[in-house]
């Protein structure tokens, strides 16, 4: 793998008046050039917090990225970057699109102006060149009549078009990494399919690596190369999309796979529903974070944190069931066969 991003032991805390919320608790992963890695997990599990920490978008003192966290972009230490380098990192190397395009587009500025800003700042184009390039970008993301829509304000566009403008803005400087936080959650399935097709096309054209944050397993199955399953600020399982869908080992991953109705299931059958809630992230956690909700929970699970077991070059899981002395249990797949 030609590695573009390396993250080791990333820890992010929010300091609130109730105490320190340890939202990201030692997350490590790598990202290869042109690869799509999906983050999946329940809301509040730390996906966005992780994604924003990579670009150092969090500001002290209320949010703290712990000092022994490692984030390396193309071999360069992001934690040590000065203000100027960080600005160029965010403009040229890594960019992010957010769930709700309305909150991240400036409502008082035409979409063309907003795309041009980055082009002038980061790629040193003059006004006329930047406008030309902005129109090209809008054409690339399939905005109809780009020569005209370049002068539209965000509210004059539909939700799907705004999301595509966001993508055009994020890609204007041809970043090596695109972080997409729930990019299609607010969209209809038909528009979602169009936006995902577009991302796929751009990925092939520009060899952009993508971090895709989503809770939609359908989107992951159709789009990601690898998946990282997160729970309570930790990665509990990681693998290729095939490994996560067809050979998952972690009970939490099973629960996620199980709670989506397959189009093939019987109507009105009871769906599998995970009970309870994730642990409070203010409290310390020195055992398996999933223990309270896990139907396979054993004594050891409540006492010690499971280590990450390597199952293949790509597939790793943190669960005591992988211990050689653990009992054999009936997996999600065994049950589904019945």
């Amino acid at each position, binding site marked *: 793998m030609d590695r573009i991003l390396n993250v080791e032991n990333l820890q992010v805390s929010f300091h609130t008046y109730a105490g320190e919320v340890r939202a990201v608790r030692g997350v490590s992963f790598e990202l290869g050039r042109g690869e799509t890695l999906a983050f999946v997990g*329940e809301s509040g599990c730390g996906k966005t917090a992780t994604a924003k920490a990579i670009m150092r978008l969090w500001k002290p003192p209320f949010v703290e990225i712990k000092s022994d966290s490692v984030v390396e972009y193309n071999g360069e230490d992001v934690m040590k970057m000065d203000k100027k380098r960080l600005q160029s990192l965010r403009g040229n190397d890594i960019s992010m699109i957010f769930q709700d395009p309305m909150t991240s587009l400036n409502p008082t500025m035409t979409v063309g102006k907003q795309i041009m800003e980055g082009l002038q700042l980061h790629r040193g184009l003059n006004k006329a060149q930047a406008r030309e390039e902005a129109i090209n970008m809008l054409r690339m993301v399939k905005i109809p009549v780009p020569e005209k829509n370049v002068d539209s304000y965000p509210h004059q566009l539909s939700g799907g078009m705004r999301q595509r403008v966001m993508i055009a803005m994020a890609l204007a400087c041809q970043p090596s990494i695109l972080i997409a936080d729930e990019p299609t959650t607010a969209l209809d399935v038909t528009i*979602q*399919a*169009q936006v995902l097709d577009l991302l796929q096309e751009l990925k092939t054209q520009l060899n952009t690596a993508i971090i895709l944050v989503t809770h939609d397993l359908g989107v992951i199955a159709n789009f990601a190369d690898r998946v990282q399953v997160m729970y309570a600020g930790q990665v509990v399982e990681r693998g290729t999309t095939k490994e996560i*869908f067809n050979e998952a080992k972690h009970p939490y991953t099973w629960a996620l796979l199980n*709670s*989506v109705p*397959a189009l093939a299931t019987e109507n009105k059958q009871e*769906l599998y529903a*995970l009970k309870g809630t994730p642990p409070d992230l203010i409290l310390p956690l020195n055992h398996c974070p999933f223990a309270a909700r896990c139907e396979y929970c054993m004594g050891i699970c409540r006492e010690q944190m499971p280590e990450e077991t390597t199952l293949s070059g790509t597939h790793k899981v943190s669960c005591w069931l992988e211990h050689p002395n653990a009992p054999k249990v009936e997996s999600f797949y065994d049950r589904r066969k019945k």
Partner: protein
Amino acid sequence: MGEYLVEAKNLCKYFQVDRKRTLKAVDHVDIAIRRGETLGLVGESGCGKTTCGRTLLHLYDATSGEIYFDGKEISRLRGKELLEFKHQAQIVFQDPYSSLDPRMTISEIIAEGMDVHLKLSPKEKNERINELLLAVGLTDQFANRFAHELSGGQRQRVGIARALAVDPSFIVCDEPISALDVSIQAQIVNLLIRLQRERGLTYLFISHDLSMVKHISDRVGVMYLGSMVELASSEAIFSAPKHPYTQALISAIPVADFDGEESRKKERLEGEVPSPIDPPPGCRFAPRCRYATDICHKEMPKLEEVERGHLVACHHCLNNHS
């Protein structure tokens, strides 16, 4: 007692945008919901699902058309009969965050409708509130808490308890799970299914999550730009859709299963839903339809039965179905 609990004929709901322009949110829709069944309603954002549900409940005045509830035309109901209808037909809203008043306790929220529709002593009322909280999977400890202290899933349960409080026979569920996490979605859907079994409820289930709609519905209606374009059993809609729009919609669902790169390639619907303001004559789907011919641009196709229980509004559906 007729077969249908709710029946609408030629239902129209128009909004006047300004002096010249009319927005046809629901345009000549026929809908009939059997007692004890769940009718799913799907379609892209803005196609008129919510407006349709609200008009059926008389929360909006229909522009034209008739709505029958239990055989009676609702626009003619007055006094006691109208009150009885409002009691029998309830709604669960999309957004559990804004649909509950944050300054009211959970028991006040649930009791609101009971005070209007049921004459209960304070003791009976309290018993009933506790019963309802249990029925939706909460405990009586929630009675005195405030809505803002609850999670999204818990609030949605309160919304369901409020709708159930007056023992309705019909509930419009408007995107009841869209704002929730997958694991909580499954809990709410299980709850709705169980309550239907126990109480014989009739649902109109509005959602853009097609796999959930398939799971919970007996029959499904597909709307496009204010019109009903297809209506059939849930099975038939998903395994053998006949309308070109339904076919595109179904093929756009990303399936949560991984069976190799090949299965990732799909047919796509191009373009976006046009504006419902002064739509052109003819089939509303024609600008995006790959089977469209001259007649499609001139004449609006009627919703007709093409197979037993399978209704489609398309001039060419008999030629294209797969």
